[in-house]
């Protein structure tokens, strides 16, 4: 009996060792393949004007915010600010993430439509490594743009004497994570959509829904508090508000940007635990969308 057990455990042990060795091999193959996919996609994007145009637009938006602060100061004579470049950096991060998300969706759908994905899958690339490659490339693109934003902030800080502190890098790092989540969401939508148009429309709708949930709720609260309309217990506005309230709560747990915003609050008050929690939530969201995308890609085929 004991002998049989020992043999059984040996077999199981050997099986586990083989499985883990196979997993490690697959993992290294996948990482290598994803890096090559990322490298190609990255170079391809850097050789097209889109990323430069959008980076310029984000910096223009950020500049407007900084100039607004300076205008306030010249009018009021005083400006009290904790981190003058936090909000501009956040705006840059949001615009860049939205663009990169759309870009990732389009890239995925195009590769599918044009058949280049199929050619990759004939070789040592699978759905997971392909998606991972896209995630990497878009994260690196974000990273490059983030470096540009930090450089811009440093130069502008020198010019204006506005304080640029080290934790600006923290904001961009948090943005990098959130960007991963948003790009994964884009890949998720792209993997489900069969055409570029459908995917883009769906992604735009999802983002719009998030915005409505985030700001519509607040607008309704204000409206009700100001006593607009005949409100009562059965008022449909209340139902709508309750629905938006619920949606808002849901979006908070589904939107990496909402988590990033909370993470920035944590960064502002130097709350390390909350920051880690938010970062973890973003990583969780990214994983959710990523594996959703991988599953959709496997199910739908190239």
């Amino acid at each position, binding site marked *: 009996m004991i002998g049989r057990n020992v043999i059984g455990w040996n077999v199981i042990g050997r099986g586990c060792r083989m499985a883990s060795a196979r997993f490690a091999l697959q993992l290294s193959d996948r990482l290598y393949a994803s890096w090559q996919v990322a490298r190609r996609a990255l170079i391809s994007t850097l*050789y097209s004007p889109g990323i430069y145009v959008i980076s310029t637009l984000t910096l223009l938006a950020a500049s407007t915010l*900084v100039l607004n602060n300076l205008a306030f100061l010249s009018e009021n004579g005083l400006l*009290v600010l904790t981190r003058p470049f936090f909000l501009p950096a956040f705006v840059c991060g949001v615009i860049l993430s939205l663009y990169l998300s759309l870009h990732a969706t389009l890239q995925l759908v195009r590769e599918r439509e044009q058949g280049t994905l199929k050619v990759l899958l004939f070789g040592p690339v699978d759905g997971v490594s392909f998606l991972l490659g896209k995630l990497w490339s878009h994260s690196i693109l974000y990273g490059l743009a983030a470096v540009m934003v930090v450089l811009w902030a440093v130069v502008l800080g020198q010019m204006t004497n506005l304080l640029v502190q080290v934790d600006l890098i923290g904001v961009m790092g948090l943005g990098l994570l959130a960007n991963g989540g948003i790009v994964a969401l884009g890949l998720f939508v792209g993997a489900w959509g069969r055409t570029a148009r459908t995917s883009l429309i769906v992604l735009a709708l999802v983002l719009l829904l998030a915005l409505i949930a985030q700001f519509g709720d*607040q607008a309704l609260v204000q409206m009700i508090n100001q006593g607009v309309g005949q409100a*009562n217990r059965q008022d449909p506005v209340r139902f709508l508000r309750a629905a938006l309230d619920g949606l808002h709560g849901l979006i908070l747990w589904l939107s990496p940007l909402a988590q990033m915003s909370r993470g920035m609050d944590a960064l502002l*008050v130097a709350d390390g635990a909350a920051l880690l929690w938010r970062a973890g939530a973003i990583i969780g969201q990214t994983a959710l969308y990523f594996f959703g995308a991988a599953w959709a890609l496997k199910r739908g085929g190239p």
Partner: protein
Amino acid sequence: MNHKLLNHKETKTQSKMCLFFCLFVSLWLLSLSLPVSAQAPERREAFVWATAVFAGVQYESTFTPPDSDTLYLLADANHVLAPRSTLVYDWSITNRLLADWPARNELVDGTLVLHNSTGQKERLEITDYVIQFDGDAPAETLALHKGQEALAQYAVFDQARQAYATALHAQFQLEQDYQAALTAAAQAATKGEALAIPDGPPPPLPAFTRYSTGVKRAFVLNLPVGEYTLWLEHPDGTEEPASRKHLHVFAPRRYGVGFNVVPASKWTVPELSDDPRNALYAQSGSTIYLQPFAEFEVNELAYGRMIDAQAKGLQEDRFVWVHTTPYPDVTLQIIQGRQVVAGAANQPYFVRQRPGASLGYSIEEFDPATEKSPNFYGYRVTLDEAARIQLVNGDGQPVMGSQRDIRPIRTVDRWVVYALSLLPLFIGGVVLLWRRRRVEPIPQQ
């Protein structure tokens, strides 16, 4: 093929049905609002916890609605929890549950049972309490007395109030005497008689600024940080069903010094600096006046729900600063590098309007000889170079959380800032040109 067509048709039919269903539900919801819009809110009997909580500088009262399952209290401070039976109703205009206290406000008798997270149980009895403070310095004099002390303090207050009433009466009498003497003097004067003119009116009594609630009955809690469960046990040993709540007792995250920053150029529009990480920016050469106050930072959700149990839009991972008392007189230091380059003391200032059409003003040091009272007090700082300020106490020790960066801003042309934003476009242009030179052009067909 037919099968596919059939599926397609089915899907279309299902979509139509779904659309009609949504339309129907929307119309139904809208129709609900029409007949009931003029109805008065329905009142219903409910058990609530009415609270008077110490919010850092004063007591705030609220009540916890039956559907709310958590109470929030600040640690190591006296708070009042009163078990009450009242009538509640929905007030949709503000989307809140309100209590009709005048209609019913009954104390529910019983014992408060308190469980902490380690399982320890404590029982509290209802006790008398009063809340008192002096209006001249409410934050410094605020006190909650309970039990016999409450009765004694209320008696003291009552005595003082009566003494004040007596003094007021005497003052009134003196005032009347004075008026009578004046009248008599005037009459004597008309008759040509000589009569002594009274010296002057009696000095006015200082205002009675002490305040006290009546002696009331409730539970008074003072707990350390932790998670608790509480409920009310009736005298017969049964639990009041709606009384069981989770109690979250929290402490401030940190303490600090906030500043009201008054710019000399616009003294009526001060800015607030709560966070020690704030930097104060101003034009180079401008002057600011700093008014420090003590503060502490608490969780937004916990604090907000503590002072208003139905507050919405609060976030559990955000923190807010609660301002308490003006900071006692200390010295302000201006530091550059590691060296203290200047200091400032808390001084009174007077704002003098300039005569003429210029409509300007100047802020001057207050001179009691020429002016009645100062417009404000503050520490005066002139911004010439980037520096750091901090408060130091009588022992020369820096006051925690009082540090701020002050920075004069350099003016930059907005077009220069926009031009700087074109950096990525420039880099992109270089990369694309380089790429174009490396790639063979596509032959024209």
